[in-house]
């Protein structure tokens, strides 16, 4: 059964898999702003590194305690040696934390690429700059980039994006944590392997019934583990749409064909909250109109500045629109307190539906 199959595959992925993929050495990609087509065209197998709840936490040696859980997770993976087989580490200048992570990996002797991306995507000058920056990476690194290999990679990822978009439309027909896992799986393996699993899943789910549940939007910082989604499943809350950098924000659904499209797609995706004019607050009305949710859950990670700034604006807007919302701040894992708050939120939605 595809859902079960997907779960199994996602579980397999959870084992660190950084070894070579055929002839290709692995590249760890830390930010969704970097399109994997580019990295594949440089001769690497791009695998997105997602933060996870994992132990032991070795980050205190290298990061101050007031760092977000995502940063702690990435640094712990590095110090535990889990990334030893990775040959290239790819970063983008989004938040100050991501920039610091690049520094730490560089200082630890790792081979890195950093996209000095603009912090605004709204002007012609910034789009032009982004394209020059992408071209700098493809022409000045010691790696060999070819337009041909880019085209091949672009075709593979175009299909992956298309299937992930189709799956996102069906996410209210499957357990929430499966969507979370499959999404991570898809960006961490070769796109051909991911597409095979996704195609099965999409076929199966297309004929499955929708789950009867409250539909919510999930906004904010990325979630470290499946715990929150398992909790949502238990409480019969279904995520109708999200704006997260480890899920739908990464995948607007349309393909790229040429290198110049990379800049265009990067600029046209829902912007990251680190960017000028970005964040959920920038596209909230569109998300609400597209998904018509019963409520909104905003997740922030402790010490995540960009999402914390965005939060205050999102909350104000939702309050003005009279949309119910719940803010959950985590340091990686969901706790008993989060469960209680989610339960109360459900009761509130339930009461509203009934009266």
């Amino acid at each position, binding site marked *: 059964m595809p859902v079960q199959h997907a779960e199994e595959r996602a579980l397999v992925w959870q084992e660190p898999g950084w070894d070579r993929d055929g002839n290709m050495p692995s590249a760890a990609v830390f930010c969704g702003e970097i399109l994997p087509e580019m990295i594949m065209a440089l001769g690497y197998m791009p695998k997105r590194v997602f933060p996870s709840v994992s132990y032991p936490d070795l980050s205190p*040696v290298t990061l101050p305690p*007031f760092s977000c859980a995502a940063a702690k997770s990435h640094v712990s993976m590095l110090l535990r040696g889990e990334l030893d087989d990775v040959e290239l580490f790819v970063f983008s200048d989004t938040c100050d*934390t991501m920039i*610091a992570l690049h520094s730490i990996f560089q200082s630890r002797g790792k081979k890195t690429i950093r996209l000095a991306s*603009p912090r605004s995507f709204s002007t012609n*000058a910034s789009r032009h*700059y982004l394209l020059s920056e992408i071209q*700098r990476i493809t022409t000045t690194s010691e790696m060999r980039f070819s337009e041909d290999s880019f085209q091949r990679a672009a075709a593979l990822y175009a299909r992956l994006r298309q299937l992930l978009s189709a799956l996102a439309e069906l996410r209210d027909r499957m357990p929430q944590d499966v969507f979370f896992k499959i999404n991570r799986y898809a960006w961490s393996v070769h796109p051909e392997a991911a597409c095979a699993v996704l195609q099965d899943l999409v076929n199966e789910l297309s004929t499955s019934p929708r789950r009867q549940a409250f539909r919510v939007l999930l906004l904010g910082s990325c979630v470290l583990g499946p715990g929150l989604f398992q909790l949502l499943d238990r409480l019969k809350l279904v995520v109708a749409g999200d704006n997260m950098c480890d899920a739908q924000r990464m995948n607007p659904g349309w393909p790229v064909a040429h290198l110049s499209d990379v800049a265009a797609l990067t600029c046209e995706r829902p912007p990251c*909250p680190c960017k000028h004019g970005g964040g959920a607050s920038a596209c909230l009305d569109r998300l609400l109109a597209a998904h018509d949710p019963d409520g909104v859950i905003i997740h922030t990670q402790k010490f995540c500045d960009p999402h914390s*700034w965005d939060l205050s604006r999102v909350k104000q807007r939702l309050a003005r629109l009279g949309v119910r919302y719940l803010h959950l701040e985590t340091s990686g894992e969901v706790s008993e307190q989060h469960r209680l708050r989610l339960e109360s939120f459900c009761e509130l939605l339930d009461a509203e539906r009934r009266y």
Partner: protein
Amino acid sequence: MSRLTSANHLKKVMSRYYTGLRIPSPGKRIAWVTSGAPIEILRAMNIQVAYPENYAALCAARRQSQRLMEIAESSGLSEDLCSYARCHIGSVLSPQAAPWKGLPRPDVLICCNNICSTVTLWYEYLAEILEVPLFFLDTPRVDGSPAPHQVAYVKRQLEDLVCFLEARFRRRLDEQTLAATLKTSVKTARLWAEIRNTAKKRPSPIEAPDLFIAMAPIVVLRGTRAALDYYRLLHEELLLRIENGVGVGRDERVRLVWDNIAIWHALFRVNQMFATHGGVFVADTYTGGWTFELKEGDPLESMAHAYLSVFLNKGFADRLADLEKSLSEYSAEGLVMHANRSCKPYSLIQPELARQISKRMGLPVLLLECDMADPRAYAEEQLRLRIEAFMEQVGGIL
């Protein structure tokens, strides 16, 4: 600590600046700007500049920041955000609770992100609540020297900034006035660098807390005569101290370098904990952020280069090289890093910098967790114990 006589002049300069900001006059325009904004363009167009960061630091130094931060937090801002931002936003939300009733209302906001990502979000927030137009100047991060496409990108935006201001205020930018302002800025920045360099002498005639206070004009009055005159006075005083072998007024047993922004609300208390054991901060990395040079040639292109090269906009290797240079040029025996909860770009790489400094230079490094403007993150006894242990290690406690 022996007091600098030029400090009286500084007081006058700063109070004139703050008073001047509030005096209404016909056609007066005010811009709120970030500390790394290219203010020479604004000055040349006779637009007054006010600095929310500097204002927040002043509130903290006067121990009036906590109340303002609480106001911002009760409006929904997280207590983990930059305390300058929280303090300043508190003053905007509740001017009655703020020193001098806050900064005078701006006509425009100019945000340049060459110091951090926080300012981008802080200024967007301000633009929304004040309903004031915002100009965002994007300066991508550089490694080493800015790349030509980065300079071109920033130059293009500086041209846009000029157009934005000209259209908004219906006044033209006069190229000669800009050239003169830039000249004064560079002169002032060079003088400021010389002032900092005097601390290379033994005994040092000046220490970091003095520099933290003396830096205000290079930030808020850069490009003006007032700043230049004050720094001439201070420089002369320091040269005289050197000539007479006068130090900071006490035994200089251990020369130290400070990394990160000052702990404004406890500036002298923290300094005293080191001073008690013969510690003198002869250099710091923060006040060095306003020593910049302009290349010859097209003024906007030179400005693009200079404003891209601000130290917080540079990569790890540059930060490490700067630190090593300071430690060796100032003959320092130890490094103290303020792990500043507020400032992620400054603080998140400090443990890694510390590791490299210890490995490469064999110098002891102390990391002190605190906050520049939030006194709630200040635990004096804990700091004292850690400082004593460190001073023992560097030979301050005999």
